[in-house]
């Protein structure tokens, strides 16, 4: 419906000229006002929940008619005796140690590989990035069948090579490793994108200069490329650390923490305590511990690694 009158109507009542900022308003207030939207979000969804969690961890879990009462550090004392917590903590440590360096190394290798001039580069990049795009739940369901004894993909390959059959997810000694492989496969492509972006920023004149000086390719990588990639590595390292604690979707689908907690990770255990056992106070205490560990690690990383990182 083309009705000129309607369209012009609001224009006729155009907004009055907005008053200029009063000269007396200090830059301080404007600064805070500009910060406000971001701060509201941060406080509402990050700082307040963290503080509330710490506060709740000092109370007992309310149940039916029994309200929460102050118990001090009882939940933390409980944790010291909780074997499953310790196992989950150790598992998580191994999980982090197993996934972080490997996925970073693979990401870097892949980035160097697809950064060069080669045929089908776009296709390769896409192939490496695909695991990142897929939802973890779907991925875990696929991998579940990869690991299936006897007719799973892995078994078919090892079987063709003459290795004996193995129940990867049903054996305490291999289950954690099996879940690590899934995590690495999922993450490496994601980290590759960051390395690829960083590599494209590096001026080709550096390579030429290094070549003129007679540096080998390894020397060029070791002395020029890698130090220049350090800011990216730091960023990726932090992300990988967060992911190693955060990524538990595949545990739900593939093992549910079993057999006998051999693949229980901290966040999965927190979920279990919070939403299967409905012990929200203890879950809060566990969360505080995870938060403390993560905070400490991030602090150490920024404090010490940042000093050795060269920003352009």
């Amino acid at each position: 419906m083309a009705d000129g009158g309607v369209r012009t109507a609001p224009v006729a009542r155009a907004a009055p000229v907005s008053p200029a900022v009063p000269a007396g308003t200090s830059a301080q207030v404007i600064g805070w006002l500009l910060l406000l939207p971001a701060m509201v979000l941060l406080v509402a969804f990050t700082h307040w929940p963290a503080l509330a969690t710490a506060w709740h961890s000092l109370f007992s879990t309310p149940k039916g008619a029994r309200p929460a009462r102050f118990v001090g550090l009882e939940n933390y004392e409980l944790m010291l005796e909780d074997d499953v917590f310790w196992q989950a903590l150790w598992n998580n440590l191994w999980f982090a140690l197993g996934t972080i360096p490997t996925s970073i190394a693979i990401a870097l290798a892949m980035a160097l590989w697809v950064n060069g001039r080669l045929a089908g580069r776009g296709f390769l990049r896409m192939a490496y990035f695909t695991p990142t795009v897929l939802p973890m739940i779907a991925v875990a369901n696929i991998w579940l069948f990869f690991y299936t004894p006897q007719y799973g993909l892995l078994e078919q390959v090892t079987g063709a090579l003459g290795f004996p059959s193995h129940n990867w997810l049903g054996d305490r000694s291999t289950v954690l490793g099996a879940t690590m492989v899934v995590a690495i496969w999922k993450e490496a492509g994601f980290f590759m994108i960051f390395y690829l972006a960083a590599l494209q920023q590096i001026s080709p004149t550096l390579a030429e200069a290094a070549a003129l000086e007679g540096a080998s390719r390894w020397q060029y990588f070791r002395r020029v490329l890698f130090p220049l990639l350090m800011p990216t590595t730091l960023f990726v390292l932090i992300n990988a650390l967060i992911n190693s604690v955060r990524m538990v979707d595949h545990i739900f689908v593939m093992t549910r923490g079993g057999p006998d907690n051999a693949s229980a990770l901290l966040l999965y255990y927190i979920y279990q305590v919070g939403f299967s056992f409905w012990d929200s106070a203890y879950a809060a205490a566990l969360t505080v511990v995870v938060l403390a560990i993560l905070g400490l690690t991030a602090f150490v990383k920024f404090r010490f690694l940042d000093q050795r990182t060269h920003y352009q």
Partner: protein
Amino acid sequence: MIRRTLLQALAAAALMAALPAAHAQKQVELSFYYPVAVGGPVTKTIDRMAADFEKENPDIKIKPVYAGTYQESIVKVLTAFKSGQPPHLAVLLSTDMFTLIDEGAIVPIDSLATSADDKQWLSGFFDSFMMNSRTGGKTWGVPFQRSTIVLYWNKELFEEAGLDPDKAPATWDEMVEFAKKLTKTDASGKVTLWGVKIPSSGFPYWLFQGLTTPNGALLMNEAGNETYFDKPEVVEALQYWVDLSAKHKVMPGGVIEWGTTPKDFFERTAAMIWTTTGNLTNIRTNAGFPFGVAMLPAKKQRGSPTGGGNFYVFEKTSDEEKQAALKFIKWATAPERAAQWSIATGYVAVTPAAWETPAMKKYVEEVPQATVARDQLEFSVAELSTHENQRVTKALNDGLQAALTGAKAPEAALKDAQREADRILRSYR
């Protein structure tokens, strides 16, 4: 002109808003949370049920809400309850009963079903399904989608092994004997076909009850505050389970994934499997060979746990809404509906009367295997359910998996599980 259109639109909107409001005074709206735990178009079936019910009861409106798996559903229901807006009714695991009671979330059904007609309806269910629905002299849940464990066997592989294809193992010894004949090894010594698979991932305690019940052991008391994990019969049952792989080599070692077990059966890498009756439709569609369904083999007696979901009615709702919820539950569990639900999903029809309906009789003629689960009900016991249910269950699950992976001896594993359960349940005694 614009203004007139706008006014008309406004008037229409006001009218539309006013209409349901006027209507709502005599109409009760119920929200109904339900999980989906088996394959098939369950959501469609539930929506159709709600629509059919509304047609017969125009004063009640049912709003079905798909809430995910059983685990996700109870999380959603309890979170909603704690925020003051619970669903009016929900289908949740029968074993969640104690958790829901402890949270003060549910209403005893017998406090709502007070008329003679109601009482007769409530007494019409299979007794073994009611075991997980009653405690402390009250009924808290109404059986709806219930199942038991049965044994499926591949008739072709039985024939190849020189066994009678129409005869399933009836005892523990027979199962080992059959499984030994069925297990096949290739030239390199690698097993290509396992005699039997009893899954042990996720909820091994349930499958384990398929071994303890035939051995005459119960795992907990009716009050749900005591467990008997370290009784000799229970240890013996676990020893048998462990021996299937460790001693007799007829079952793969380690933990066997629940989710891939039916697939193992289709792929002919397992000749016999234990799984829920709820998988009947799945196996019927996907098995490319004749198969049989049998009760679990006996030791001292036959036996299996029941499983699956019950209807619950929630607190923090008005009396009128609670009565409306009861009306829907009664309607949904009436013989014809129960039969219809059982045929559509593979769950066991929950009342003897449902099995007498023409629709069910016709189904049984087509799928005679469906009756096995019903006949097994006579020997069935309640699924493991206690206060702090998931925590106690986890203690047992961890112990079972430790034994099956060879980390602990059966007796030590069960002693540890019992000690943990005692610690958790102490405050409920």
